[in-house]
């Protein structure tokens, strides 16, 4: 079982990103689950979304999760949310930030000793898609860190999932995914 927790703000596309990732993985024969905590959330409120991936049908519906990966797609959430909650020793973090890894850990000492990857999904999204929607770049970074799929396969899959959007937006997302794949450290 592979488990992922997303930290996001409502409106940044974590729930959509989690569902998109699940959709891609499902086409390769694995079983998936994607969900989010909503409440009476407002745009901008901190929220979490989740993915489970397994070879067998996923029967576990508990919301509690000790994630293998934590995605932080808004740079401020490492300070205002506990992104390390329910972590395991080998939990990997992919964090959206403009800071270097060292400066990030200095700013948030809880991240000391964790396996951390950084990528500036917000800047990438702004420069490619033209809006700060950091969900698809995060998935590009995840492909690099996890080596889950070949990036070309992943982009082709995402083209299908984003298919109903205007071609310009789809193309921009492809660039965003590739840039995050190339830039994650």
């Amino acid at each position, binding site marked *: 079982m592979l488990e992922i927790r997303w930290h996001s703000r409502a409106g940044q596309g974590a729930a959509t990103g989690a569902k998109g990732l699940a959709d891609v993985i499902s086409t390769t024969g694995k*079983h998936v689950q*994607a*969900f989010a905590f*909503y409440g009476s959330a407002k745009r901008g409120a901190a929220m979490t979304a989740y993915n489970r991936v397994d070879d067998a049908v996923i*029967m576990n*519906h*508990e*919301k*509690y999760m000790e994630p293998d990966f934590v995605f932080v797609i808004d740079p401020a959430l490492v300070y205002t949310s506990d992104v390390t909650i329910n972590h395991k020793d080998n939990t990997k973090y992919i964090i959206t930030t403009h800071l270097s890894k060292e400066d990030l850990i200095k700013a948030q000492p809880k991240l000391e000793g964790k396996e951390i990857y950084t990528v500036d999904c917000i800047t990438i999204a702004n420069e490619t898609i033209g809006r700060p929607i950091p969900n698809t770049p995060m998935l590009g970074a995840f492909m690099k860190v996890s080596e889950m799929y070949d990036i070309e396969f992943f982009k082709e899959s995402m083209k299908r999932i984003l298919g109903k959007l205007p071609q310009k937006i789809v193309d921009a997302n492809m660039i965003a995914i590739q840039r995050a794949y190339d830039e994650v450290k």
Partner: protein
Amino acid sequence: MAFDKMELKDIEVWDGNFAAAQALRQCQIDVVAAYPITPSTPIVEGYAKFLADNYIEGEFVMVESEHAAMSGCIGAAAAGGRVATATSSQGFALMVETLYQASGMRLPIVLNVVNRALAAPLNVNGDHSDMYLGRDSGWIQFDAFSPQGAYDLNFIAFRVCEDHGIRLPCMVHQDGFMTSHTAQGVETLSDDVAYNFVGDYKPMNDMLDFEHPVTHGVQTEEDWHFEHKARQHNDLMTKVFPKIEEVFADFEKLTGRKYNLVEEYDMKDADVAVVCMGTSVETAREVATEMRAKGIKAGVVGIRVIRPFPFMQIAQALKDIKAVATLDRSAPGGTVGMLFNEIAGSMYNLEKRPMLCGKIYGLGGRDLTKAHLVELYTELQANVDAGKITTPLQQFIGVRGPKLSFL
């Protein structure tokens, strides 16, 4: 046909709401009268979009309340249409008066109920309070444990409730958010296969059949009311299970997916078992398997059909079990949980009765974790080892503050 068909992948990643909306599209519902409410909104929203995009020949009626939504469904069903809608929580509560009208008038409406807590305090998350509120209304009630179930049970519901021997309305329940907003793989049917399974709707006593005028919604006082209600109850108790089992069998032949009135998991040689509904059934199955690896013979009974209640089938499933816990996801309001009550009744005439205790859990969407279930099975095994119930009969799982227990 004048509408478009949709190409689906064999497995689509859908949440429970979208799975239900797709099923309504494939069943070609004539009329949906709806007043959307969280978390069921995407079901009727999905139907409306499919309709606007020409995937359905039908009509979406926007109304001013859930009471009006079900009233509109009743009118459309009495006129002779295939009718469905969806609701949750307060919306369901406002429908209650009309639920009894629908069943009393023998109208085969399908209502998707995305289970949600009832206020106060206001809460949009999933528990079974609304489902329990409908249980005396004379409707058939199916319970889905996953998005796949929400999809499949809609087809099954139409086949069952539209049968001329049944003609009773039917609810398809799914857990708010835990199913309705959780995307999982759903094995799909093609549009033609799905529609052929349900078949063309053949109305009975429809008001638009002007050659055979009928009256719906009549008044009967003590001269006839009891006979109407008794015959309605008789049909629920004697005709519905055979029909459901027939449709379950047909569905298995078509899809390979097998549904049962009572879903038994590892019950054959179990010492301890939990009885529950919704997504909790699947989580409990995973934990039961893990308990067996630790030497505790654990099983799970999931209730697929809540009304009519599978009284004898439950007794059969539990007859050799030593200790049973019922899991009720609804505040029992001054008594034991509904499942505790029903299960106690079903087991009372068994030769050797299992020890029975009741748990209230998950209100307002509070998480039922695997750790909770491990603790519960361990407690049931402790009862078995002690030869008696070692705890109060009613306890709460997962509530903060001082431990609450009663009886």
